[in-house]
């Protein structure tokens, strides 16, 4: 397997609409982030280039990044060349209203998705995680439309994208993105039944939809062409009687990584080239660099057998 990161690790220091050094951040009423070891991209620095620098510094092999940081095809080609010069692989990210009704899908969403797929391909991506961009109104728990209807729509919408994926040589990886269960994601992938649609398995996200991560990994493995490594600490009992799920650095939570990585190594279609991207995004007052480095160190020390290229980088 190859080890990478998701840009979401740095969401609070680099997302233009979230970064914690914006004046607007103060109105969230959160503590100040003291004693930080990293700041986000400077005013004249492109976030995508900042990310490449981070990758090189951390000794990683792949980067998960969406289209938001690529303005046009010239940008994409420039980014591709810079990634190639640093021997880095791009895993694209594609936001889709994947359970949109047919009329809405045909009224612009399909065209936007096709455009994004072409842009990612121009940037050098051969895989792209496809995520539901309306998780508040379309997810496992929503009753209207029912989950069955949502899955039928996703099958129809993903199917419509397969020809362009084949044309540009880019595979989509449907991600369980704090919205759907892997059992549902598998249903869609089987329904589409195309070599250009697989799964981006997120190790922590099953918890959010009350699905056991190891059970989910077993179901996802045969279709997994990418993965996100995420850990959560699950605290079932609390003073209020409402359980809490907290971010943790990898290895400090309750996600069974040993078993999951073994399942992926044994069951994924091509485990040797499977990119797994660390996605650890602590709350904004915590230091994302400290969390990320601790997670990378833990992965390298604990699972050298799964990441042969990381031995020399460590």
């Amino acid at each position, binding site marked *: 397997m190859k080890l990478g990161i998701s840009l*979401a690790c740095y*969401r609070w220091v680099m997302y233009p609409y979230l970064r914690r050094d914006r004046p607007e951040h103060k109105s969230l009423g959160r503590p100040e982030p003291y004693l930080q070891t990293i700041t986000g991209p400077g005013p004249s620095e492109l976030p995508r280039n900042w990310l490449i620098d981070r990758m090189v510094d951390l000794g990683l092999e792949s980067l998960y990044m969406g289209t938001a940081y690529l303005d046009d095809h010239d940008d994409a080609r420039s980014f591709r060349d810079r990634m190639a010069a640093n021997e880095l692989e791009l895993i694209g990210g594609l936001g889709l209203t994947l359970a949109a009704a047919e009329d809405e899908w045909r009224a612009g969403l399909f065209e936007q998705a096709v455009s994004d797929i072409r842009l990612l391909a121009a940037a050098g991506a051969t895989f792209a995680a496809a995520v539901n961009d309306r*998780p*508040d109104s379309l*997810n*496992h*728990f929503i009753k209207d439309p029912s989950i069955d209807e949502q899955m039928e729509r996703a099958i129809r919408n993903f199917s419509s994208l397969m020809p362009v994926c084949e044309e540009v040589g880019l595979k989509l990886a449907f991600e369980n*993105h*704090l*919205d759907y269960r892997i059992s549902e994601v598998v249903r869609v992938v089987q329904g589409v039944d195309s070599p250009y649609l697989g799964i981006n398995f997120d190790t922590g996200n*099953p*918890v*959010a*939809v*009350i*699905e*056991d*991560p190891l059970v989910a990994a077993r179901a996802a493995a045969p279709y997994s062409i990418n993965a996100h490594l995420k850990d*959560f600490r*699950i*605290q*079932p*009992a*609390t003073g*209020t*009687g*409402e*359980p*809490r*799920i*907290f*971010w943790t650095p990898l290895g400090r939570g*309750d996600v069974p990584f040993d078993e999951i990585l073994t399942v992926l190594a044994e069951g994924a279609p091509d485990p040797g080239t499977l990119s797994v991207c660390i996605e650890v*995004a602590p*709350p904004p007052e915590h230091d994302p660099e400290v969390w990320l480095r601790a997670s990378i160190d833990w992965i390298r020390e604990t699972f050298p057998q799964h990441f042969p290229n990381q031995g020399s980088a460590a």
Partner: protein
Amino acid sequence: MKLGLSQATYRWVCYPWLRFDVPEFRYSERRLPYFMSVDPPDTDGPPVDWLVDRVLQHDLTSLYMESGWLSDDGISSSFKSRMQASDLAFIGSCSANLAATEEEWGDPTYPLPAEARERVVYRSTSGDHGWAGGSQFEVLVRAMELAAVAGARIINVVHDVPARHNHFTKEPPIDRQIERMIRNFRTLVPVAESLGIVMATESHMDYRCADLLAVMEAVDSPWLRHCFDFANPITVIEDPLDAVKLVAPYTVVTHIKDMHARPMTHLGEPRFFHAPIGSGDVPIEAILEVLQSEAPDPDNLEHCLEIVPTSEYDPEAWLDASLDWLRANCAKFWN
């Protein structure tokens, strides 16, 4: 099926160590509840009579309550008389470290010697609560004895150190915890049989129903059955509908509650919130269907409402709304 009340519905109003009107509450950093439609009990001790009044007020048929609150045999007998006079069933509750080591669990000799029955006491004040003075085994025996005197035919035996041992903790791992629970429950089976009281396991924000099923199957006694909690499986990442299908054949009582799932949040940490029944994401009707068809005695199955809004909300309003929803939408299940 019947509808009852769990004491936990009023935890922020009536638990001596949690109630919002004691000074200690101000240290909790919790918001004060405004516009409450129920007054706290006028006792600073266990609110037993107050809870019976709430059951009657809502036209329910049972009360789930900590048996330690009954303190001694005299109070238990008196409580039994009041419950019988009102045709109410009492479902007891007791707790201990179910995954205790053999040493922590203690000598499982039964009956307890007289000095142990004197030594083991339940305390309930604004600053402290719980059993003291005995081993885990002795505590549970005393709690079961009091419940039996008070007329209970079922008592939930729940785990009381969920932060130390639960499905996710590794010292020891869950398989070893299950082995300990099997050993410990086996020592209680003769006690339950002698007292004529059925013990019920409960997924109590600690273990999955699948874990507890393994315990019940291994103990293999009619004196060990299950209390199904409609929402607690969520807290241990177990689907409630899958869970009830596992334990329905063992289910002799339930805690009926709802919870709202918010899988994606601004911080990226999923949240699960209490909700009035019918307003959340627990498939209430589907679970009731499973219990109706697979529970051993569905006609007499007591569903104790355990509506536990956080302290700033009015539990009476939530309970009223939940009862209205259950009576309107699930009427076919109620006797």
